[in-house]
């Protein structure tokens, strides 16, 4: 399905059509250029970053003389060589580029070596003589909690009186769950290529979701103004949050080498170094204490969330906040207290990952739903439905925002029918009753995901649009392309505004030199923010063209209509290009910036109240699984998804986000296990040991639909909804379905002890544990 052909009635690449990804021809031909494919300039140095082998130690001595004298070495850099500030953190100033007196995780950067080849640089780095004096290391959430080791202060959200509700409700249960982290496993690893400019300038090609922050960090490390640093990229080979704050380190080191040698320098981490050195999704321990009535309606709940933040704050504050914001998912909690601990451990500093804490918060409440269902003997779907937010009442979140756009009940109803949930559940119960070794399970779980950066100031974006004399358009904005299709969506918006075919719109690299002070392409906000900013820029130019037409052709405004690739002015029609050229000759400016800030939002972390989200994105999924009770092996056999993309800007792109997000979430909750040894070293640091879903893990029967009633009640770009993150959480249905399958061995009376990821090992342990509990 490519763009519909242009006709007199339609442009190619209008909004709401399934335009192909702008780079797809280049992707399949191998001609799409990623940072490591940019032809290297003569004299380019390759940089190896030497890493700590201890989780927590004092750097007693660091002798780099043998490194400096090794063959080929052009420069060796450590903390003492940083002219500016030795920090590459996004916010808190606690992520040293090079360790100074102490190392705080295995994999932390200590020094860097530049040489003509990476082999020489790596070999030289191995000659360093490092003496460590080990210090006590906290590796897990539990150790950090016990030691009261935190990167940021605890946070609380409170609605009503949970303690009171827990005392008085007829039913009460508590539990504890571990939810594992996740490596991004973007196929393209971290990479930065820095090239010297005039004066102290440096131009950095960085694979990053956040060019402005990379720019700022590089400038800070070099001790130069931001204007001396330009950061540019055309595309990333995947990001998923892992290229939001993390790329600053690689870029800063590449720039430091440029500064010290005057030569271009590249830092490209190989897969193992990347996985050891860079942050991941936070693993959480979540405890709950819940009270509910005999129908399973929650009367009150307390959550204790503890996240492993690692050795520094990074983005953990906002991530842990978002976990709290999503501990309700679609459900009205009426009396809720949510406490969040941001644990400091001597492991890599965890970071943004698609969903940004939301998925962990949501897993916990969905587990509570499963628990209540097993305790009350009701169908888990009925328990879920009974707890959904209302539309007129029962609609206040634990952070005191009123849910105004709740479509969950309607959407769930539709999916329940289209997936044939009830009948399939009955069949599964029969199958399981027959005493098979294999057990089946099914679950429907919904998603409600808040859209906006919860730091209100980040919700802004800029764009730059030029129209050339021939009517072709140069489009630039602050968003970055990591595969999600942002560029084609924004190009569709601009094509739509000008009513020109999308091929007339040139999509260009993101660069801090064109649009400054941008926010990260994150929080699913890319097309909401940049689409609006680009629309504003296009409208500014369009308005000038209209004004010109009014003046030059002497017609009233109403008689100027932009038709596909042409403009009707009064009774005459001229091509868009002719009008543009005419305007140029009349000395009309054909370049404009556009700016957008999200309205209505505010959030006060001190009181735990506000409206942090402009709107919510919704979806629901039914997953069916089968589990081998002898081995714990399992498969997802069928998945039905109904997802609300508003009025989708590009259905094909959005379907891709839904499917990819779901599979990534499924991986997080099933096969993707991060495993550290007792010495604090991550042992799953390559695809041989870290298992993301492969082709055959995709359910054979996979039915995905975009909700055709979807329409954003808020005035977003063409009433679409953000799509990047929400679908990941649809995969929680897999974990609940696995829980359902395991629960069968206990006669559906007890909640299996099942942490995430539900590997075969954890499933088998849950099965054995449940059998033992059921027998006793």
């Amino acid at each position, binding site marked *: 399905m490519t763009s519909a052909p242009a006709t007199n009635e339609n442009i190619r690449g209008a909004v709401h059509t399934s335009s192909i990804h702008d780079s*797809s021809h280049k992707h399949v*031909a191998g001609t799409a250029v990623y940072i490591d494919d940019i032809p290297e300039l003569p004299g380019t140095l390759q940089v190896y970053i030497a890493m700590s082998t201890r989780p927590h130690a004092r750097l007693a001595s660091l002798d780099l003389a043998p490194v400096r004298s090794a063959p080929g070495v052009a420069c060796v850099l450590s903390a003492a060589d940083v002219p500016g500030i030795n920090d590459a953190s996004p916010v808190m100033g606690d992520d040293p580029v090079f360790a100074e007196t102490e190392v705080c995780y295995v994999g932390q950067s200590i020094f860097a070596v530049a040489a003509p080849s990476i082999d020489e640089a790596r070999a030289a780095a191995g000659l360093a003589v490092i003496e460590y004096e080990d210090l006590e290391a906290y590796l897990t959430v539990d150790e950090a909690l016990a030691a009261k080791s935190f990167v940021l202060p605890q946070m609380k959200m409170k609605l009503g009186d949970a303690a009171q509700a827990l005392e008085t409700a007829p039913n009460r249960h508590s539990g504890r769950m571990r939810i594992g982290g996740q490596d991004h496993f973007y196929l393209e690893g971290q990479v930065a290529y820095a090239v010297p400019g005039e004066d102290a300038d440096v131009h950095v090609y960085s694979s990053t979701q956040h060019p402005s922050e990379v720019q700022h960090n590089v400038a800070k490390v070099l001790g130069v103004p931001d204007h001396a640093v330009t950061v540019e990229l055309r595309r990333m080979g995947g990001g998923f949050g892992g290229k939001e704050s993390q790329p600053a380190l690689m870029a800063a080191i590449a720039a430091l080498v440029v500064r010290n040698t005057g030569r271009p320098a590249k830092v490209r981490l190989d897969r193992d170094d990347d996985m050891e050195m860079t942050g991941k999704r936070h693993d959480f321990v979540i405890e709950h204490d819940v009270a509910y009535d005999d129908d399973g309606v929650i009367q009150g709940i307390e959550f204790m969330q503890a996240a492993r933040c690692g050795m520094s704050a990074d983005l953990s504050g906002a991530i842990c906040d978002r976990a709290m914001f999503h501990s309700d998912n679609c459900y009205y909690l009426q009396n809720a207290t949510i406490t969040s601990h941001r644990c400091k451990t001597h492991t890599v500093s965890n970071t943004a990952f698609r969903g940004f804490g939301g998925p962990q918060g949501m897993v916990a409440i969905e587990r509570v739903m499963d628990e209540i269902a097993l305790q009350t003997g009701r169908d888990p779907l009925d328990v879920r439905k009974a707890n959904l937010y209302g539309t007129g009442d029962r609609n206040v979140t634990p952070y005191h925002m009123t849910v105004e756009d709740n479509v969950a009940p309607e959407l769930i109803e539709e999916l329940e029918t289209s997936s044939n949930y009830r009948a399939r559940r009955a069949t599964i119960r029969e199958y399981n009753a027959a005493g098979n*070794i294999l057990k089946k399970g099914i679950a429907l779980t919904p998603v409600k995901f808040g859209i906006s950066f919860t730091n209100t100031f980040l919700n802004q974006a800029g764009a730059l649009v030029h129209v050339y004399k021939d009517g072709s358009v140069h489009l630039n904005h602050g968003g970055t392309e990591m595969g*999600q299709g942002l560029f084609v969506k924004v190009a569709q918006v601009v094509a739509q505004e000008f009513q020109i075919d999308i091929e007339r719109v040139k999509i260009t690299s993101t660069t801090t030199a064109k649009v400054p002070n941008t926010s990260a392409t994150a929080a699913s906000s890319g097309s909401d923010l940049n689409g609006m900013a680009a629309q504003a820029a296009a409208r500014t130019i369009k308005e000038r063209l209209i004004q010109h037409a009014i003046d030059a052709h002497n017609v009233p405004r109403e008689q100027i209509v932009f038709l596909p690739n042409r403009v009707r002015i009064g009774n005459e029609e001229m091509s868009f290009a002719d009008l543009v050229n005419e305007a140029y000759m009349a000395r009309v400016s054909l370049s404009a910036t556009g700016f957008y800030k999200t309205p209505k939002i505010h959030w006060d972390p001190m009181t735990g109240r506000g409206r942090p989200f402009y709107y919510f994105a919704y979806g629901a999924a039914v997953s069916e699984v089968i589990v081998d009770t002898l081995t714990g092996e399992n498969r997802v056999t069928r998945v039905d998804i109904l997802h609300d993309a508003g009025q989708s800007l590009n259905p094909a792109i959005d379907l891709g986000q839904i499917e990819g997000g779901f599979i990534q979430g499924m991986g997080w909750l099933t096969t993707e296990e991060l495993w550290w040894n007792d010495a604090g070293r991550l042992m799953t640091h390559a695809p041989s040991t870290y*298992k993301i879903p492969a082709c*055959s893990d*995709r359910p054979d029967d996979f039915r995905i639909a975009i909700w055709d009633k979807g329409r954003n009640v808020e005035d977003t770009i063409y009433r679409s909804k953000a799509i990047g993150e929400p679908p990941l959480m649809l995969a929680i249905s897999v974990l609940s379905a696995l829980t359902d399958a395991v629960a069968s061995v206990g006669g559906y009376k007890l909640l299996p002890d099942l942490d995430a990821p539900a590997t075969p*090992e954890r499933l088998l*342990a849950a099965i054995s544990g449940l059998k033992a509990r059921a027998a006793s």
Partner: protein
Amino acid sequence: MSGTVRFVLGSELRELSDVRPTQTVLEYLRTVEKRCGTKEGCAEGDCGACTVALGEPDEAGEMHYRAVNACIQFVPTLHGRHLITIEDLRQADGSLHPAQEAMVRTHGSQCGFCTPGFVMSLYARYRTGEPPDAAETDDLLAGNLCRCTGYGPIIASAQQMFELPEPQAIACEQPEVIEALREDSDATGLELRGGAQSYYAPQTADGLASLLLEHPDATILAGGTDVGLWVTKLHRDLECVIYIGDVSDLKAVQQTQRGLEIPAAATYADAHDAVGKHYPDFGELIRRIGSTQIRNLGTVCGNVANGSPIGDMPPALIALGATLVLRKGKERREMPVEEFFVEYGVQAIEPGEFVERIILPLDGQKLFKAYKISKRFDQDISAVCAAFSLDLDDGNTVREARICYGGMAGVPKRAEHAEAALQGKPLELDAVKAAMAAMASDFTPMTDMRASAEYRMRVAQNLLMKCYLETQPGTQPIRLAGSAGIKP
């Protein structure tokens, strides 16, 4: 011996006389040829971003094209072969190959970084002319990881490409481009020296045997699925490499009176059909040992010779009583496969000696079952691998039980106590339970990133139960691992 690596890249002959013997094909493509369409995602043969198609002539000189991982192949192994990369697929008029066009039409790329690798896997399949069914598609793509798409559109492409018009006049597919390779059938093999490194690629088993006498400490290179990683991951300098992939008389799997003879250079792909025909579970074990790309490179003998405790071939070979033929110069000796594994890191092999072949007895009477437990079904390393060979008499009494596990000890090891508990007993629940309990005396497994000791033990025991249950009449299949894959 010749000192020049000759191969065809796309439609052009390459003759390299100054090449580092352990330079990877991927590095060569990206840095020397500036063909940057081939990507690095892992440098260990696990992600497929570096997939290329490699054509190799058979005995009749007919070219066969297979998808392989460029990241773990050394450049000299290209000698006499035809390398095709993503840049070669365009048709004469500049339009896309069906494998590419299908990926565009299905929205099969998002970030695009994995895409060239997928296209090359699809392309290799396209050249076979046979559209894959669903299970074959999963298997075809098991070695290509995509983090963005969720695979659906790519799976659809594997069908759609066969429905598009056939490509026209692709330069690299013209018969004359490989003529240059035929001219050079110099049978003496390749010999290279690069700095402190040397590289030999003998063409006969005798040549290999005498080279090894001269260089007893040489590293024997077959598919590179293990040795390649010594270079890309462990950054080891290999001084002397002897490549056996050109040894023409050690390639063909043959059925003899003694059974199936699997010689040193026979890949998993070469062995799969013949082994799977006699022992379907063994065939499936071969399928699951790695991706299509890995099976096209790695060898069955290599999986034994490297001495790993977690290789999947040894448990099956040991349970089936296979024999190893070791050769040194002109001398050969034989031993049961299990005796090769002395202890962790120690094998019963002498300097200058090599594993020449494995002889797998074909005994249709025995009941054979094998299982592999891993976090992911495809392209994963076993936490536990189990193989059961049961010889039952007419009365269902166990005459002999041979049970071997990988992942349970420092070597692939038989469960002797469990075997003894079954020996002479009717194959019934009581005996099975007794054998499961006895297994606790057979192993003290360890905990690592693949599994805990407790899980390993429990699942090892349960697999015996599964084996028993699967032998009961009327039992439904109780496996979730896909089994279609490459056809027996």
